[in-house]
C-alpha cells in the first residue's frame, strides 16, 4: 500500500520535473533533501508533526531550501511535508530517481559520503563510473556521517569502497 502510494508520488513528481525541464536537477536535489531530513531527528520530527499547521511546516521547508534548490524541488518537498508524508520522503526520492534513471536508460549509483557532493563532483563521478562500468549511471548521493570521509559507491552488485571508515576497519582487523 505504502509502496504503491510512493510510486504514485514518484510518477507525479517525475512528470512535473520533466514538464519543468529539470528532471535531473529535481531528482538530485530531492535525494539530497531527503537524506538531510532523514539524518536530522529534529528536522524529521518537526516536519512530520501534524499538530504543527501545514503552513508553518511549509514555511520551514521554504526557509531551508529557498535559494538552495530549484523552485520545483521546493514545491515538491513542501507538498510531501504538507501531506504528512515526511517519513516516506526518502523512499519517494529513491523511487523518483529510479524511475528517472530507468527512463534515461541509466543505472542508479548509490553514493554515500560524509559530506554532500557538489554538482561538479557528481558529474565527474558519473563520468568516471561510466568509463569504468561502461554504462550510464545516475548518482544518488546519500550523506552518511558514519563514512567519516571519502565515498562508498554501490552500482548494482558492484561496490567501490574508498571510505575512511573502511580504511579504519581494515587497519583494526590488520592488528
Amino acid at each position, binding site marked *: 500500500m505504502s509502496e504503491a502510494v510512493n510510486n504514485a508520488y514518484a510518477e507525479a513528481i517525475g512528470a512535473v520535473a520533466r514538464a519543468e525541464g529539470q528532471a535531473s536537477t529535481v531528482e538530485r536535489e530531492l535525494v539530497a533533501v531527503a537524506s538531510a531530513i532523514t539524518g536530522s531527528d529534529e528536522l524529521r520530527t518537526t516536519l512530520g508533526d501534524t499538530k504543527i499547521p501545514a503552513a508553518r511546516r511549509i514555511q520551514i521547508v521554504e526557509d531551508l531550501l529557498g535559494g538552495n534548490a530549484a523552485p520545483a524541488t521546493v514545491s515538491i518537498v513542501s507538498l510531501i511535508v504538507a501531506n504528512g508524508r515526511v517519513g516516506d520522503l526518502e523512499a519517494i526520492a529513491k523511487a523518483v530517481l529510479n524511475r528517472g534513471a530507468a527512463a534515461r536508460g541509466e543505472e542508479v549509483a548509490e553514493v554515500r*559520503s*560524509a*559530506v554532500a*557532493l557538489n554538482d561538479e*563532483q557528481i558529474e*565527474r*563521478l558519473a*563520468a*568516471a*563510473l561510466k*568509463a*569504468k562500468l561502461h554504462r550510464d549511471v545516475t548518482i544518488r548521493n546519500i550523506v552518511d556521517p558514519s563514512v*567519516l*570521509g*571519502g*565515498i562508498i*559507491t554501490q552500482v548494482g552488485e558492484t561496490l*567501490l569502497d*574508498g571510505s*575512511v571508515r573502511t580504511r*579504519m576497519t581494515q*587497519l*583494526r582487523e590488520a*592488528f
Partner: protein
Amino acid sequence: MIAFLAAGNGNWLPHDINEVYWGTAAFLIVFGLIIWKAGPAIKTAIAARPARIAEELGSAATARASGEAKVAEVKNALADSDKEAARIIDEARQTASRLSSDTVARAEAEAVAIRERGAADLVAARRQAQADLTNEVSRLALGAAERVVDANLTDDTQQALIDSYISQVGATN
C-alpha cells in the same frame, strides 16, 4: 569259751550271759549274710581291680602319648608359625620396598608432569600476555589514529578525499 569266760571272775563279761550269746549269734548271722551276699562282688571287684588298674595305666599311657604328640604338634606349629612369621615379615619388607619404589617412581612422574604443565602454562601465559599487549597497543594506536583522522577531516580534506576517489575510479577503467 564264752561259757568259760562266763564261768570266770565275771568282771569283764556282761551280767547276763544271754546277751553274749545273742550278740554273738547276731554277729555271726550278719557276717554270714555279708560273706554270702557281698562276697562274690567283693571278690569280683578285687579280681577286676588289677585289670582296671592296668587299663587305667594303658589309658594314661595313651593319654601321655597323645599329650606328647600334641606337644610335638604344638612345637611343630610353633616352628611353622615362626617360619610363617618370618615369611610374612619378609613379604611385608618386599611389599614395603616395592611400594616405596612405586611411590618414588610415581612422585618422579608427577614431578615431571607438573614441570611440563608449568612450562606449558608459562608459555601460554607469555603468549596471552603478548597478545594482550599487542591488542592494547593496537587499541591505543587505533584510538590515536582515529583521533588524528577526526581532527584532520576538515572540509578541505573531505573534498580532497572525494576528488581523489573520483580520480581513482576514473583511472581504473
